[in-house]
């Protein structure tokens, strides 16, 4: 992915740091063009820009809601019943496991079942830097269109900026998955959560129910609930990073302006040019969204970092806490989802999204 150009016609998540820089520049330019004279350093008659004006403060205020979670992601170095040692980009971190802290590894497991070398996502206890609240080991998710099916292994197309994903349905979970996804032939949609084993996902949990139609015949569902032009409610899901260097926090948004030529929207596959799940306002990579988890009350301001190609295809509801309005309004990165109090194995949370500011 690093080799891909960060041109204006590419999704943000194609290009790692370059695209992240573009996100910041867009925020700055947008603020500049709407700033009152004197309000913005560097715009027109007030030179000297050196930061996105007020964005950090506003973002902090937006994130000041209940449920402030942090996460640590990395590779497990060592695990004991009470201590986890995790290798992160900044070095090793020792994290304490409280009694009763759930550890997920395909199911609730003991910490000693974790294996060194596994990729772990650890949500920290609120206000604590070294105490784990919940641990997910080797969790993965694949959502998209089945492009090939052979001997129990599926190849799933998640969009043009992501590699095709291999999915093997675990025999132990086959019945549960086949009830929710009865059609596993090419052209049908699938969304499953499971254990990541190298390049293959061992599917264990169906993340939703299979839509009645083939991906190529996805039609517009009922609109999400809109409380105003900038605020809408629906289901927030999560996706795995496509590449290790991808921006860890952000939102893949299902209504990135198609005229921007976003690679995923412009995909030749009919499945990915389907109408969006709802009447969502057009935004661009770099737009800011305030996402609120209605189940935990946690709110965060996150940038749009890509096109939610898979989210466009599912018109489902989230049932995590009550029934959400129909449609996926945000496809969060794995880290953002966990930091907003979402349980990764539950696939979604009910969300209210506001275009920021």
């Amino acid at each position, binding site marked *: 992915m690093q080799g891909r150009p960060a041109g*204006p016609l590419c999704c943000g998540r194609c290009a790692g740091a370059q695209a*992240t*820089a*573009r*996100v*910041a*520049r*867009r*925020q*700055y*330019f947008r603020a*500049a*063009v*709407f*700033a009152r004279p004197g309000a913005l350093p*560097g*715009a*027109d008659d007030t*030179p*000297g*820009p*050196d*930061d*996105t004006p007020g*964005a*950090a*403060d506003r*973002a*902090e205020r937006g*994130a000041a809601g209940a449920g402030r979670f942090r996460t640590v992601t990395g590779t497990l170095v060592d695990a004991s019943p009470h201590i986890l040692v995790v290798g992160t980009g900044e070095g090793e971190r020792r994290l304490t496991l409280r009694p009763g802290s759930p550890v997920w590894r395909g199911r609730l497991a003991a910490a000693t079942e974790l294996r060194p070398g596994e990729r772990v996502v650890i949500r920290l206890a609120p206000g604590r830097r070294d105490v784990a609240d919940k641990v997910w080991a080797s969790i993965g998710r694949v959502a998209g269109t089945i492009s090939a099916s052979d001997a129990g292994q599926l190849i799933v197309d998640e969009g043009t900026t992501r590699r095709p994903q291999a999915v093997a349905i675990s025999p132990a979970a086959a019945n549960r998955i086949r009830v929710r996804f009865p059609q596993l032939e090419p052209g049908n949609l699938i969304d499953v959560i499971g254990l990541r084993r190298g390049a293959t996902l061992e599917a264990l949990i169906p993340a939703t129910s299979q839509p*009645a*139609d*083939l991906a190529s*015949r996805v*039609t*517009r*569902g*009922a609109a999400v609930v809109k409380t105003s*032009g*900038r605020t809408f409610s629906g289901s927030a899901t999560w996706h795995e990073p496509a590449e290790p260097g991808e921006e860890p*926090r952000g939102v893949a948004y299902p209504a990135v*302006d*198609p*005229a921007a030529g976003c690679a995923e929207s412009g995909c030749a596959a009919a499945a990915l040019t389907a109408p969006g799940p709802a*009447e*969502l*306002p*057009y*935004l*661009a*990579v*770099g*737009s*800011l969204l305030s996402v609120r988890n209605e189940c935990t009350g946690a709110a*965060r*301001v*996150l*940038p749009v970092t890509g096109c939610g190609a898979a989210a466009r295809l599912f018109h489902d509801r989230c049932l995590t806490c009550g029934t959400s309005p*129909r449609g996926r309004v945000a496809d969060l990165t794995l880290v953002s989802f966990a*930091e907003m109090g979402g349980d990764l194995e539950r696939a979604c949370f009910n969300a209210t999204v506001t275009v920021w500011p």
Partner: protein
Amino acid sequence: MTVSHALQQMQVPLLALVLVGACAAKMSRALRARSVTAVLDATSLFPPRLRRPATMAVCLTELCLGAGILLTSGRAWHGWAAGVRLATALFFLIAMCAVVELREFRPDLGCGCFGDLSSKPPGLRSVLRAGLLGAAGLVSIPAGELTLPPAGPAAALDLGILVTEFLLVAAVSPEVGEMLARLGYAEPCELRAAPPQRALAALHRSRSWRRQAHLICAGNPADMWRELCWWYLVYPGRDGTADCDVVFAVEVRPRRPAIRSAVVRRAGQVSPDDGFDRRQDAADGLSPAF
């Protein structure tokens, strides 16, 4: 002419209009979407391979029954009138059962009775409407040949019955509210698809462009994106001895869009990459984009 006979006769134009209207609404939707199975509706109760023929069969049946009722209402082909009206009554009674089934098994789908207008899940009103129209079909069987009433009280009675029936059907039709909403609806700018070429053309004609043109040193924007109701265009420029960026915001509006501009000097600007760590600290773990 008695009131009961007038009541029987007035079912005929009512049924014909409802059937032809429903068929026209479905065909209009199919033509606009260029697909018979454009929207999920009551035919979703069928297996996928049968949905297309089912939709076509419903549409064709409505057209045939509507036209049949009109054609057999006069003297010609009047011998077929009772049969057509009975078939119409059966059609609506089957439709009532289908709506009940839809509410039971796919409560998230609209019935599609009147195309796009019936996209909301059907309520009891939709069931009641189908039942009333079925009853109207049965009532119309002994109505006999439809004749124009003589001017005077008889015509007023016919007209009164017809208007009352239409109001009754409208009252049990959820589609009426949707239709009225659409008549007064203009798509908000944030939902409106707009080609970027239009923004460029509007910008190049604008006074803002002429005012900043001397600063701009490239023909094409270095970056261009759409957010809600605005297009943003960034051109590299040079202001005296310093490099700068000229930023334009063009409103998404077909005519006379508002255009704003700003010149952002690059000198002394911290590169976005350098600023990320600082912003991340300030934003307390939020995205470095802040």
